[in-house]
Every structure is written in C-alpha cells, then in structure tokens.
C-alpha cells in the first residue's frame, strides 16, 4: 500500500529538505518514490507544498484531497489550510510556530485562533511539536526543519539509522552533528 506524506509551510522554511530526506530514506528502503515540488513564484514567502509518495509503485506525484496519510506542517495556518488533504484517520504533525501572512501583517485579516483544536474537532489526529524550542535545545534555531522531520519520521518508520543516513546524505557535513541531535529530539528518543 502506498503512503502519502504532504509537507506544507511558508516559503523559506526549508520544507524541500524534509521531502528530500524522506524521499532518500524511502528510496534506500527499496520503495518506488515520487516527490512533487513547486518552484518559482510560490517560494517568495507564500504557502509552499511538497508531496512525497512511496510504495511498491507510485503513479501521481501529487497528493489530492483526502489522500495524505501524514501531514507535516511547518506552520499552524498552513496546517489548517492543508486539512482537507489529510486522509480520515491521518496524522498531522504540526509545528506550533505561527507566521503572519501579509494580510495579517497589514491588519486586513486576523490570524485565526484555536486552529489545532479545530483540526482535532474535525477528526484529525494532531501531534503538535514546539520545534523551535527543540531546535534551540539541539543548538540552533535553524534546525527547526530537522526536528520536524524527526517527528514525522516516527510516524512512518522506526529505523533511526536509516533516517540518519538520509539526513547525512542531504545536509552539509559540518552541520551533521547538530542535525542528528535535532532529528533525535524530534523523533522523541
């Protein structure tokens, strides 16, 4: 059975690294893998979406409404936006961080309150992660993305060494130690 992981966030948060690490780990496991990315205009601080699908044989590179087994959200509002894509019974791993979109910055709109409880009310299993705090614990705010990758990884595959090999393949060597720590904190070891 194929698995679908949807990764959402705000342009510049490092969502592409998450999809690369996940894709790389699942390729090593011997699965067919497809990763759908969007580049260009949507990277300039806008909503970004990446799809990772793996299994025996994967056709479409995109994930549609009701199909995601796991939703990895780097930001709360983006998590809420992606809720329709989560399969009923699927797990949403959500960073508790909030980033105001321009309409909120300018005061034209308000950042909605109570998004995570509302998602739970709609039947989603929400796993909220204070990734910023864990990243600081690991040694740098910049490791937020790898903390989240760790939290997502736990939902998919228990073999930590497999994941760490993928992390190693996808991050610069001098940051590996920091990222390993961040991954383990996110994974919850």
């Amino acid at each position, binding site marked *: 059975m194929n698995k679908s992981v949807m990764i959402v966030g705000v342009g510049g948060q490092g969502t592409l690294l998450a999809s690369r690490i996940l894709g790389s780990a699942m390729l090593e496991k011997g699965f067919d893998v497809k990763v759908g990315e*969007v580049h260009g205009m949507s990277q300039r601080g806008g909503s970004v979406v990446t799809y990772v699908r793996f299994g025996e044989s994967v056709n479409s590179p995109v994930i549609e409404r009701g199909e995601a087994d796991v939703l990895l959200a780097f930001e709360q509002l983006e998590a809420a936006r992606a809720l329709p894509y989560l399969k009923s019974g699927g797990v949403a791993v959500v960073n508790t961080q909030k980033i105001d979109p321009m309409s*909120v910055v300018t005061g034209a709109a308000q950042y909605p309150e109570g998004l995570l409880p509302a998602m739970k009310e709609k039947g989603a299993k929400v796993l909220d992660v204070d990734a910023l705090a864990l990243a600081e614990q690991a040694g740098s705010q910049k490791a937020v993305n790898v903390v989240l990758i760790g939290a997502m990884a736990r939902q998919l595959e228990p073999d930590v060494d497999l994941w760490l090999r993928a992390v190693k393949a996808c991050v610069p060597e001098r940051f590996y130690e920091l990222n390993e720590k961040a991954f383990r904190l996110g994974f919850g070891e």
Partner: protein
Amino acid sequence: MKQLLLGNEAVARGLFEAGVRVVSSYPGTPSTEITEAAAKFEELDCEWAPNEKVAAEVAAGAAIGGARSFCAMKHVGLNVAADPVFTMSYIGVNAGMVLAVADDPGMHSSQNEQDSRHYARAAKLPMLEPADSQECKEFTKRAYALSEEFDTPVILRLTTRIAHARGVVECGEREEIALKEYVKEPSKNVMLPAFARPKHEKVEARTKALVEWAEGCGLNRIEDNGAKRGAICAGAVYQYAKEALGDSANYLKLGLVWPLPEKLIRDFASLCETVYVIEELDDFIESHCRALGVEVVGKDVFPRCGELSQRLVKKLVDGVELPAAQLDGPLPVRPPVMCCGCPHRGLFYALKRAGVYVSGDIGCYTLGASAPLSAMDACICMGASVSALHGYNKARGSEAAKKSVAVIGDSTFIHSGITSLIDIAYNRTNSTVIILDNSITGMTGHQQNPSTGYNIYNEPAQAVDLEALCRAVGIHRVQVVDPYDLKETQRVLREELEAEEPSVIISRRPCALLKSVKHEKPLAVDPEKCVGCQACMGIGCPAISMRGGKAQVDPTQCVGCGVCAALCGKGAMA
C-alpha cells in the same frame, strides 16, 4: 545506479548520456533546472543566453555545425523562439537538435496557460512527452536518434508536475558522439525561397513518414486490461488516470504527442465501448481522434483550464470523491511577497507615492502589483513594459508621459527590453523607463545573466554596461539610484518624470538573498517613540507587524535595509 531525480535533472542526465555537446537556454519556471543540472556535466558546453530566440539559434547553429545540441525554455519562451524554430523545421539537422518546452498548467509561475503542443503541429515538428523522470531521461535520448533519423529538430514537452517531480531514475553511461563532418550545402541550410520551396515538400513527406513511424515506434503503447472503457492520455495525466481508474480501464499511453498515430488509435478504440481522451488544457488529442472519426469523451467532461489530478479524473469519470475535512470559515491567504530587504520595495513605494501609471514586466517585481504597494497597472510578457509604455504614452499624450513609468529587471531588459528602448529613443515619447538592476535573474532562482559579470559556471564574464548601452541607443538622461535611499529615489523619479525627453533610471542594489550580500543589524522599534501611526506598514515588509498598537520588527527576518526607518516620522525605528 538508481537516483531520485527531478524530471528536469533527468532530462539533463539524458543530454549527458546522449553525447550532447552544446546547451543554450534562458531560465524560465518550470524549465530552469534542466540547464542548471546540465552545467554540472563538464562534457557539456552550457550557457545562459540573453533570450530563448538566441538560445534556439545557438542550438541550431551547433546542430548545423555537427554537435548534438539542446535548448530549454518555458512555454512562453517558445513564443520568443518560434521564429528560428519554424525555419529549422525546414532546414533540419546535421547532428541532432532537441528543444525542451515546459508548460505550466495551473499557472504556478506563469502569466498564461498556453498549450505548447500546438507548436509541434504548427511547426511540423515531432514532440515527445515523458510521464515520469525515467522517461524524461529515456525520451531525451530517443529524441536525438529521432532527430537524426528524420532530419528534424525534436521538441520535448514537459509540464510542471513532470519537470518538478522527483522520481527514480536508472542512470547509464555517456555515449561519446564524434563531431559530425560539416559539408557546405546551401540548398539544405540557406532558406532562400528557391531552396525553401522543395524543403516544404520534404517537411510534409517527413510528417507522413513520422505518422507511420508513430504506429510502431514503441513510444506509444496500449495497455489492455480487458476493460470496457479506455483512456487515451500522455505525460502527468497518464499517471493521474492510472491512479484514478486502475485496471478498470484500458490505456493508450502516448509518448509521441505529435504527429499522432492513426491505426493505433483506431485499434485502441475498437477494444473499448467508451474512449476517454484525458488531457490538460486544449483538446489536442481529442480533436485528432474526432478527425479520424473515432468517437471519444473529452472536453465535454474534462476542463480546459487548470491542472487535472487523480481526484478530478475519478470525480469526472466515476463521480466518486474521497471525503475531505475542512475548517469552518475562510483562512487568510498567503500569497508570495517581496522578501525582507528586497531592493524593489523602496522603488515601488516611491512609485506608489508618486501615483504614476506603472507598465510592469516579468520577474519578482511583478509582486509590486500586490497590496499594500499596489503599484502596477499592466503586465504582459518579457520586455513589454518598455514598448507598452511607449504605446500608452502615444495614446494618452505628453501629460500622461509625466505620470507614467515602465519597470523592468536587469535580466528581462537584456532579454527583450533593449529593442523596446530603442523604439522609445527612435520614435520619441518622453517615457521614463526604470531598470531594476538587482544583479541577478531573481524569480527563477538566481541565474547569472549578461549584465551580472558572471557566466553559468560563475566564472567572470563580459558584463553589459547598462548605462552606456542606454546612452548608445539614444537615451541622454540616465541616472542611477540606490532604492534603499528612499529620498534620493523619490527625487530622481520626480526629476525624470518632468524631463522633456526620454529617460532611464537604473535602480541598482543586489538581491538581498544573494550569498554575497551582507546583511545589516536588524532594526528594533523603540516603543516609547512609536505612536502606532503605521507609516512603516506602507511598504509591506513581512518583518514588520503591529502588536498592541505598536510596530514590531521580527529580528529573525529583518536584514536591516532601513527603508522602514526612512518612513518613520518619530525616529522610532533604528
């Protein structure tokens, strides 16, 4: 060796393995990474050309000269390159020539949703469309063999979901292809009418031969699942259809989307009670089937606008959709914005304050159209800002010329703004053209261009001197400003709008995302001084927000450009 490659990277891998030597492209989403990835192979001589027409001509010349050649572009780039492409169809090739065009259904990063398959039919060129990364590589290699066998350039068509999807690719070795002998043959290569007339006959015969070839070339295949219904599809849509319908349908999977087979389509139709043609954008395959007299279900069910997906196919064919939860009430949207420290911000703020008509162009600065800057009136295509301003001022007269500007990026100006500027100088309107020189091609992800002083390999290269160029074409008033200096920018803008002759303002400051750009200390708001007037909010900087009636600067985002501080009448930002 198996690798997870973007469709675009897989095309580049195909170029490497096919023994290609010359690659010339202009960046354009979603095609850019092909050429970036190609430049990593030292066997390939790659370059960023000033525009797609130049790129296609470089590839054409290389093919005539005996080297396998390539150029890549986005769909609208093919409009620019169409002139040489149509005639290269007549000339044909010596060594193989392939042109990749990446369409953008859904317009993720484009100004229109044109269907480039029409170009294949119009220019009478074979077109291949891969359905995953592995096919991207394989079809690229097949395209060169096809090009040389049929003496024709070949078009490789991608869409966003193929170009920007990673898939598993089995990589092979490079086949070194020797430079072919060049033999002078004017009747083949010089398209005078007397030589072109017999070539047209040859092109028509070639298409006939290609239709025959299409029947058995292996690029098109029937998957017979013994079902009553069948789907004809290609590219990403084949994947959507397979996922949506599985074994409940037979498939005619097309890899060669022009010319289309005839017998194969009839044979397929005879297997099925109902045949669906599932394709994004226009009814390209559908109209071919109908012309053959094959009854199909197509655009009466599937949309012409936007992307398809497995969900849409399932819904439109079977009327079934998965349940999807949704929060009550709308969520604030998050469109892309100019980055913190973007040099375009100060300039657009000045334009907003001046209340001028802004003739816009293609690049990051098109975001100047969004609130709160809202400083753009029109945006058509690469280079059009300059010529359309000239036209606007012709229509509305000299007073309008004092209240209007064109904005165009450095790369876009090189691409196709220069000839437009010549028109302004030559056919004289008192137009004011602003070149937003951020020293890079920004929107597509930081590619070098002829004005940056570096080539695709980041080696020092001859740089276009923009000031000298503008003067040389007959613009006598050329001023350079730093858009971080808001007061000076506003002063120069006023001066050039008033000028009784054409003028150019070069707004020069490198993109804040460039690694070479050093950021200043983040600004902080003094809550004692801030009166909550929100003057600083007018520039739409994502680092500034209002909290408890006072402005606040996010230190993790602020790069210290200081444009907001210039707007603060209370000196609260420092």
